[in-house]
Each structure stands twice: as structure tokens, then as C-alpha cells.
């Protein structure tokens, strides 16, 4: 979400205000979330991790690595771009950013959707719609590095790296360096 809100089509550049999580903090949170995924699903049978393009994809890969370290299981990882399922097409420029690659039929699987920032929930709504075209998952769970509030839809995360109260106008950036809050302009 933050990725797209920040995209150049909106104009302005990101000015950082506060560094909230370090790179090491993000890694610790990821490892904890990975353990939570394994605990909640009593293992990793049928678990598929799907990273949302673009911010969720590196996090999804790292979560799969953390799961491998913890459980010694290779979990399939996919990527999903939701541009074609968004509800604001025609309201603003919407373009696919990167590839969608879902590993096989999702019917009967437990899908863990991974994104960097959970904001209005509209990206997740689009992702749920998109996922249903790849089969009927047994369950879909949501993991986000940052939950910044301001939901516009009845959507909540199952695994959260950090709850981060923000003002609406603020931006949250998740990168290899950690998590930063800032403003546009």
C-alpha cells in the first residue's frame, strides 16, 4: 500500500522524519512472525507464502528463509500483483508493477499473504479477489511488517511486525534499512 501511495504518479518525494525499526528489528519481527505461522498452522503442510508486489515480495522470501531455518521445510513462495483487481481503476493511474507468479493450484492450501504496510486494506481486498482466481484456498492469512491503522474495510492482519500509529498524511517506508516514517514533499 505504502509503495503505491508513494509512487511517482502522486508527485513529491519522500522526506524521512523518524526511523522506527532498524534492519535488525525487521529481521527479528520476521523470524517471530515465521514462528507464529508455523505455530498457528501446526507445521507448514499446505502452507504457501504469497508476497504482494512490490513491497511484500522481499519480505515473503525472507519469511520463507526464516521458516526453513526454524522448521527445515521448503515453503513455496509466490508473488501477486493486484493492479487488475483494484477498485480505484479510472480514478487514478493504475499500472501493473511486476509479475504475478503463483506456485500451482491454491485449492486446499493455506495462503499466507505478505505485505510491507497495511493501511486502508484496499490492496488486501484486491489480493483476496485475485487469489480466488487461482483456486479455493482452505484459508488465507495476512502477515504485514507494519500495521499503520486507518482501515477503510473490515480487514485485519493475522501476523504483525509492528503496530505503528500514524497520521493519514504520513508515509511509511519499509526497506532493507528498516522502517521509516516520513511525509511527502
Amino acid at each position: 500500500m505504502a509503495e503505491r501511495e508513494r509512487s511517482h504518479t502522486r508527485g513529491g518525494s519522500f522526506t524521512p522524519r523518524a526511523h522506527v525499526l532498524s534492519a535488525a528489528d525487521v529481521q527479528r519481527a520476521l523470524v517471530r512472525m515465521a514462528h507464529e505461522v508455523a505455530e498457528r498452522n501446526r507445521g507448514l503442510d499446505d502452507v504457501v507464502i504469497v508476497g504482494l508486489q512490490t513491497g511484500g515480495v522481499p519480505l515473503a522470501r525472507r519469511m520463507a528463509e526464516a521458516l526453513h531455518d526454524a522448521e527445515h521445510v521448503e515453503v513455496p513462495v509466490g508473488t501477486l500483483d493486484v493492479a487488475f483487481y483494484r477498485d480505484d481503476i479510472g480514478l487514478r493511474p493504475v499500472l501493473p508493477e511486476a509479475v504475478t507468479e503463483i506456485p500451482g493450484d491454491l485449492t486446499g492450501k493455506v495462503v499466507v499473504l505478505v505485505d510491507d504496510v497495511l493501511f486502508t486494506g484496499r490492496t488486501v481486498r484486491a489480493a483476496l479477489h485475485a487469489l480466488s482466481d487461482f483456486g479455493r484456498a482452505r484459508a488465507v492469512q495476512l502477515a504485514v511488517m507494519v500495521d499503520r491503522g486507518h482501515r477503510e474495510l473490515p480487514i485485519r492482519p493475522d501476523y504483525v511486525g509492528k503496530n505503528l500509529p500514524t497520521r493519514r498524511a504520513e508515509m511509511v517506508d519499509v526497506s532493507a534499512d528498516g522502517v521509516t516514517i516520513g511525509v511527502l514533499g
Partner: protein
Amino acid sequence: MTHLLSIADLGREGIEEVLRVAEAFAEVESRPVRKVPTLRGKAIATLFFEDSTRTRLSFETAAKRLSADVLSFSAASSSVKKGESIRDTVETIEAMGMDALVVRHASAGVPVQVSRWVRRCKVVNGGDGWHEHPTQALLDCFTVRQVRGGVEGLRVLVVGDVLHSRVARSQVLAYRALGASVTLVAPWSLLPPSLEGWPVEVAEDLDAALPGADVVSLLRLQAERGSGAFVPSLREYTARFGLTARRAALLAPDAVVTHPGPMNRGVEIASDVADLPQSLVTRQVANGVAVRMAVLFLLLGGAM
């Protein structure tokens, strides 16, 4: 950009954007559910004043894969037969709440004219006379790029009836914009009277040109536009400009052959050559849907 009337409207950046978005739609084609809700609630009409199989079906398939509603108009079974003008026809169809019109007409310039009449519809040129067929050139570039990894620096031969070919005009613009070089290979009788301002070279000896080519774009000899009268006989045309099995053997191993269809097997392309792996004809048709999805999406929902 409000309409797609000519490749010239796009420029290099615009073409690359269409190809990039088309790649995302090509992936949709490989899904178990080959349909996305992107243009739900939009209505697209195909206005074909001239016959077509693949272009119309391809646009209609593209629109349906995007969840748009499709209205299909063909002049042969309409009030045009009773003498209704194109303008009245277009205004009637737009009044039914269409968001985009795909227009094909035997006369050059009709889509441009239609784009001046519409109030809010987007207009896509589905082929006008000898002028242009932009989506065909886009899908050719997409297909060549997919197989060869890029278009920049490729040597493209456009072979055959250039005079009557809207595909050739769009291809020259598109391939050149993407950095390929284009050589027209045709009998003088099937070249336009003047090539001034065209960024192309001309050759008359196909055998000499083939070994250096990366892409051979064959054009259809258009009997319905009277191109038969421009060559002494079909046999002589084939003997000099047809891609026969002997000529196909002159091609570099990684060269590819495209044809916009419908093919005249045995005239511009030998039947066994059409079925060689270097021939991209069926891949072109498959990619045509993805490319037209991209065009409709960019005009109606994306960022064009």
C-alpha cells in the same frame, strides 16, 4: 492520450508501456481463470465496416477477459445497408453508453474522423484502408521481443504488398521507434509511389536480403484490394517474393517469420514454411489478445 489511431500517437515510450502492460496480461492468459475484473462496468463496441475474423475476435476476447461488456457491430447486417451514415451510426452507438469504439473501415482516415465525432468514447483503430493497423504492429513487436529478447538493433524485412498494406505502415513506425532497422522487399509495382520521409531501405532481391535478417515480416497479397493486378501472375510473385522452403533455409538459425494473417499458403508463404518453428503466426494470434487487453486497459482504466 485519448485514442489509439496511429503508432505515431504512441512514440517509443508509449509503445514500450503497451508492451510492458501486455506482458502482465499474457500472464493472466496462463491462469486457471483467464479473466480479471479490471474493466467491469465498461462497454466496448467493435464497429467493423469491413470483414475481419481475427482482429474482431481478438478485440472481443480481450474486452471479455477484462470483464467489459461487448457490443458487436458489422456493417453488413446493419442500418448502414439502409443508407445510414457513419456519423449517425457512431452517434447512435455512443448514445448507448459505450466507453470505447474499435473501428475498422476500408477507407483510410475513418477512425480519425470518428474520434472527432465522439463525445467521451475512446477510439481504437482496428485497421483503416491502406493507412494503419496499430494493434497488429504492436503484437508483432511484442511477439518478436518475446522470442528474441528485444527489438533494438534487429534487422527487419517487410516483404510483399507494401502498397496496399496498413500493417506495413504501422510496422515501419513501430519497429523504427523501438530501434530496429527496416528494409522493404517488394516488386516496384507494390511499393508506394513515394517513399520520401520513410525511414526504410528498399531491396528487390529477397534471396540476397534473407541471410542478414532477424525478422521476416510477410505481408498478405491482398486480392480483395486488387493487388493481383500489380503482379504478372501469382506464380511469378511466389517465385521472386514468396518465402519458399528453399528461401527459409537461407535464414539465420535464430531468425523469425511473422505474418498478420490470413495467410495465402503457397503464395507469399509456402505451406511447410508456415508450420516451421521459426514461424510465429499462432503465437502472434495468442499475443494479440494480451496486447489488445493492454491497449483497452490503458485507454479505459490505466494511465494512457
